Each structure stands twice: as C-alpha cells, then as structure tokens.
C-alpha cells in the first residue's frame, strides 16, 4: 500500500512540475517576447533575435517556427504570441481580427529552379521541366510556394507533370538534394540555405511572382518591445540578415 501512495505522490509531483514549467514563462527579472514566425525565417530570425536580446537587456525572445498556416490556426485558437511573421499575405489575413494595426511587409521571396548538384540533366529553363521523363517535384497548389509555382507556370505557359506535390517547400528541397528528384521549384532562400547540396537555375519570369512576408503585432500584446522587434526586422540590420539568407527587400 505504501508503494502505491509513493507512486501516486511521485506521479502527481511529476504532473504538477510538468504543467508548472509551461506556465512559468515570465523570467524573474525580465520579459519574454513571443514571436511566431514562418519556418522559412528560422535562420534569419534566430540571428535577429540575438541582436535584439543584445540590444534589449532583460528581454528574452522566444521564437516559434512553423508553417504560416499552422501559426495562423494557433493564433486563432488563442495562442498568445506577441508578434507574428507570416510567409505570405493570405495567412496574415486569416488572423486579421487578432492583429493590432496594419501588417508591414518586411521581405520578399521569389522562386527558383533547383537541380541535383552539377545539374546533370542540363536544365536551363522552366520549359525544360516540362519533359515528362524528368522527375520534377513542386509544392502543392494548396500551400504558398505551390500557389506561386502555379502562377509562374501559368504566366510562362509551361505545363508540368510533377512526380510529387509536396506540402512543404523543404520537402521539395529534400527530394532534390537527396537525388530522388531531378529538379524542383523552391524559394531562392531555400536554395541559398541548401548551399552546395543543389544547383540553382534561374526560372524565367520568376521576378514577376513575388511572395511577400508581412509582420504584425497581435492585439493585447502591444508593447514597446514588440514594436522594437518589428522595427529591428524592418530596419537596416534586420534587412541585412534577411538579405544574406536570400530574401529581397520589399
């Protein structure tokens, strides 16, 4: 019997300590700024958060990266972010009721063709991807990079027969860099991040299909710190970091 009591006490203690962890988000001496950001911003925002923390002693930036639509769903479900940075405008529109003021466009992204390292299939243009013998992987039209892909191929009058339509641009990249696919269409930033794992081939007309990244403060989270973070992202320093990762300035 004593064993049971001990076990229950231990379980209760464990449960309490686990739940306690999640609710103690405030630092003793400072503040936590919660930022929900599109997965494609991971690298840039980690650097920007470091700069921010160095400039604002006592403020901890807690970054959460996920697909923009996941983050939008979380915000509509009551997740208490202070700042939301989306990879496209439709997902920012989904949370229109939860944001304070107008979102600011802070970066843009365009599509590019990626191939296996060294481009063994000698792909030089978007039209080359229409070859049905090639295994071409693109994003599904339901996700932002897929919408952009469809716009681009429509504009260029190219019909692709994709081997697979992925739900995430990173999955497209993974299938090309692992050699499963001959080529794929990803964002310039993904290609930049992949380095030597892929070869980048410019896609004709890609400049005309621009994906815009908005950032906004959430209602109830209006604070100097949140505004300072947005200012950093949109300012010179933030833009330099984003530029290094392949983003263009709006």
């Amino acid at each position, binding site marked *: 019997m004593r064993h049971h009591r001990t076990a229950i006490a231990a379980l209760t203690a464990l449960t309490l300590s686990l739940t306690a962890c999640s609710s103690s988000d405030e630092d003793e001496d400072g503040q936590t700024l919660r930022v929900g950001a599109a997965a494609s911003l991971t690298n840039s925002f980690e650097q920007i958060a470091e700069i921010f923390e160095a400039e604002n002693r006592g403020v901890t930036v807690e970054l959460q990266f996920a*697909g923009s639509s996941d983050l939008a769903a979380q915000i509509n479900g009551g997740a208490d972010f202070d700042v939301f940075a989306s990879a496209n405008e439709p997902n920012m529109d989904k949370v229109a009721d939860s944001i304070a003021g107008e979102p600011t466009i802070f970066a843009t992204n365009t599509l590019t063709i990626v191939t296996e390292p060294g481009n063994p299939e000698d792909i030089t243009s978007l039209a080359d991807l229409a070859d049905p013998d090639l295994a071409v992987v693109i994003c599904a039209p*339901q996700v932002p990079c897929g919408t952009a892909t469809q716009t681009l191929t429509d504009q260029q009058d190219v019909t692709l027969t994709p081997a*697979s339509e*992925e739900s995430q641009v990173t999955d497209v990249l993974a299938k090309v860099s692992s*050699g*499963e696919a001959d080529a794929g269409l990803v964002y310039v930033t993904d290609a930049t991040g992949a380095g030597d794992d892929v070869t980048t081939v410019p896609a004709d007309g890609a400049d005309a299909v621009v994906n815009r990244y908005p950032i906004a403060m959430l209602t109830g989270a209006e604070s100097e710190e949140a505004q300072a973070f947005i200012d950093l992202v949109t300012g010179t320093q933030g833009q330099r970091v984003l530029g290094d990762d392949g983003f263009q300035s709006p």
Partner: protein
Amino acid sequence: MRPPRWLWAPAAAAVLLVVVPIAGLVAQVQPAQLWPLLTSPASVDALLLSLRTAAATTVICLLLGTPLALLLARGRWPGQSVLRALVLVPLVLPPVVGGLALLYTFGRRGLIGQHLEAAGISISFSTTAVVLAQTFVAMPFLVLSLEGAVRGLGQRHEEVAATLGASPWRRLTRVTLPLVAPGLMSGCVLAFARALGEFGATLTFAGSAQGRTRTLPLEIYLQRETDPDAAVALALVLVVLATVIVGTVYARTIRPERVA
C-alpha cells in the same frame, strides 16, 4: 478477483484523454458539408488509394510476417533475440526516420535502389513506394500479434501431432495455424489499420501525388492548409474506419486470450 477500486480514477482519466479529443474532432464536423467534401475527386482518390495500398500491405505482411513470427516463437537459433528486437524497431521509430531509411535503401541513390534504377526499375514516387513504407511500419504489428498467439498456445498439440507421425508442414498447417487463427486475424487487421494511418514514412519516401501516392493521411495534411473543414471530414472517415477495424479485432480476440 476485483482490482482495487481506486484504479477507476486514473483509468477514467486515461479514457478521457483519448475519447475527448476524438469527440472534439467529431464536434467540428459540419454534417451538411460532409457529403460534398467526402465525394470530391481528390478525397475519393485518396480513400481508394489508402484502401488499396493498405490491403496490399496486409497481404505482404501476412506472407512475410507469418513465417517470421513462427520462427521467432518456435525456433531456437543464435541471434534470435537480437532479430526479434530489430523487427520491432519500426514500432518505436519516428515515421520520418522510417521514411529516410527507406529513401537511403530504395531511393534512386539508395543501397538497393541504385541497382534497381540501373535495371530500369524506379520505386521513387510510385504506389510501390507507398506499400513499402506501409509494410515497414505495419509488419511488426502482425509479427507481434502472431508470435504472442503461438507462444501462448504451448506446444502440447503439436507434440501430440508429432507422435502421431505428422510432418512439420502438416503440423503447421493442420494444428498450429488453425489454433492461432484469431491471433493471425487480429495481426492482419492491426497491420491493415496501421497501414491506413501511415503518414510520415510515406511523405518522406513516396511523395504526394494525387491518385498515385497521396493517401488519406497525406490528403488530410494537405487539405488542412486551405480547407480545414475538408480535412476534418476526411479525418472523421479515418477515425471511423480505425474504430471499426480495431473494434473488430478486440471483439474477436478477447475471449480466446482469456482461455490461454
């Protein structure tokens, strides 16, 4: 013997933890929209592909997993426990790890895939890849169920058959297999259900193309991006299928297990 009464509290919590989220999902379903969402070409393609691939997976699990389970339960050979552990590894692996493992084996640059590719056989992005992914994760369910059933059976009947002069093959087909039929059946159904729910390995290894590799779980994942209602409607189909399937297994197997 009656278990201690206080077990009811944590047991009830356990049930709630499973049932309430499913109820939450069901509550989200809008009945009026259900039919058009479920009969869209993409949904129908995904459902049919899922049923087809899960059926193929079950047959493969049955053909390959049955001998393995029998050898694990009855054989005595070196490395048996190591092999047993290995076979069960997919149960605990994150599905995406399974997908990567398959990719580096059967993919175009993979261990075996590169030779298949040279021979003109490409598994990438094909329905075959889906079945491979599902088999990888579902096989342990059949092996585990059947091995447990065979072990639980004891050797008495087989020994009697042997003294009567039955050959090993005859003992297997006339004595052992008929006796473990419920275990075999539940193993098949669990493998089928697991195949139906497979997501990570398929996405990583097979990709997602409508009618070819985009199974029901992948379609749900994709629909959620633009049409959460459609995703919920499809999810409901999966929940109902899984409940019916798992329910059938337990209705069949609970009694024979008690006897053993």
